[in-house]
């Protein structure tokens, strides 16, 4: 058992840097190969190098769930699965791991905690709310990475079983509404917090800018984004501000 634990711990550590060489050719592939390598060290000489090379092929998914593919592919190599089956397994995992991770983390856990933190800061909690965000977020983050690697290593080519884990299904069902409620509540509180130093005319102007910008994002979301519109309006405000002494 201890003989397996050390390579798994090493693979987990390397998974934190899985996107270190992110690129448009293999995406996360090289990082996946680096993370998988400790789990392949006890393979025979003839199997080790081809397995390492396969591990570094194209791969793309959510970074927190990559461990599932790393563990599953390494287990399949140990079980003597044919190379083309391992390649197919990796290909098959890209889409589901990407969409599951995006739904659970980028559209759930992260905005939920960010919304709660925004509301807490607006209500006067200060830096403690930010520290709590970091701690709570990373409890979920590290737990998910560790679970993914262990589940992949346990199930091997039958890793799809892990994707139907009831906790994942329940988390997916709960995080969406919780995130929507938390960010919805945070927005007016944040608006009040940010507009507190403004005079009344500036608050009216702020409401108008926010409403028109929101309409712009809803109607022309394909062309407009926050950065472009902010820069354009800031440039306009600068010109007016220099003229209007």
């Amino acid at each position, binding site marked *: 058992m201890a003989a397996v634990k050390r390579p798994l711990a090493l693979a987990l550590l390397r998974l934190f840097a899985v996107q270190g060489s992110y690129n448009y050719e293999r995406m996360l592939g090289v990082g996946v190969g680096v993370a998988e*390598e400790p789990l392949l060290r006890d393979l025979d000489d003839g199997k080790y190098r081809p397995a390492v090379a396969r591990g570094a092929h194209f791969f793309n998914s959510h970074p927190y769930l990559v461990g599932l593919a790393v563990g599953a592919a390494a287990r399949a190599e140990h079980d003597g699965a044919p190379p083309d089956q391992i390649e197919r397994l990796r290909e098959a995992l890209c889409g589901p791991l990407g969409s599951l991770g995006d739904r659970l983390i980028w559209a759930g856990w992260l905005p939920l905690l*960010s919304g709660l933190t*925004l509301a807490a800061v607006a209500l006067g909690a*200060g830096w403690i709310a930010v520290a709590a965000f970091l701690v709570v977020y990373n409890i979920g983050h590290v737990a998910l990475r560790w679970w993914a690697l262990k589940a992949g290593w346990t199930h091997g080519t039958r890793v799809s079983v892990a994707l139907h884990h009831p906790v994942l299904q329940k988390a997916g069902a709960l995080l969406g509404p919780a995130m929507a409620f938390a960010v*919805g509540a945070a927005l007016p509180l944040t608006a009040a917090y940010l507009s507190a130093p403004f005079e009344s005319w*500036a608050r009216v102007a702020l409401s108008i800018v926010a409403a028109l910008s929101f309409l712009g994002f809803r109607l022309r979301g394909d062309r407009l984004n926050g950065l472009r519109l902010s820069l354009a309006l*800031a440039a306009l405000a600068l010109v007016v501000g220099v003229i209007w002494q």
Partner: protein
Amino acid sequence: MILPLELLIALVVWGTFVGVDLVSLPQMMIARPLVAGTVAGAILGDIPTGLKLGIVFELLQYDILPVGAVRYPEYGPATVAAVATAHASAGVLGLGLGALVGLVTGLFGGLTINLLRRVNSRIIHNAAARLESGDPSALVRVHVGGLLRDALRAAVVTVFGLVLAWLARPLLGGVLSVRGAVLLAVAVVGTALAAGAAGTLRLVGRGPNLAWFAAGLAGGIAATIWLR
């Protein structure tokens, strides 16, 4: 903005950690503007300014869903530069100038991320034969090279932002009227609030979560009125 050398070094180091955290290592969300801004504020002994600018850029961050190889601005080091700018100018002028410096830095940071990915692609393409041989040391070398390039990139973006912060006050502070400074702050804060709302609605969609969003919004409005 004139800061002691040790504070400047601390800001560059922090901005570099923040920039690396965004994609490369370890993605623990110190790259979120709220965290990046608060710590930058703490370094400067001005946490309230860090929190305020952190919130502005956190709202803009809602506009971004980092899926696939999508391109996006980098608001982490941008928030560090924004806080450094705002710390040097009091009140609403600081908020407006800080946000402007942060936006330009965020744009620059996004461009460097795209450039880095192209450079990584070329290096990995050139190393294809060694990678296909299954040589683990070649694999690790290519990967660690990518990490180091990202650290260098993040440091360059932070320094770029701090140079802008240094230039902002003498270049714009003198010519901008008080009303102009307020307008600048209004423009950025208004757009950030709109980006936060529109970005959240994109995540929420038209399904049952929309009702939860509406309920949260109503609760937030009620709490805001009650607390006034």
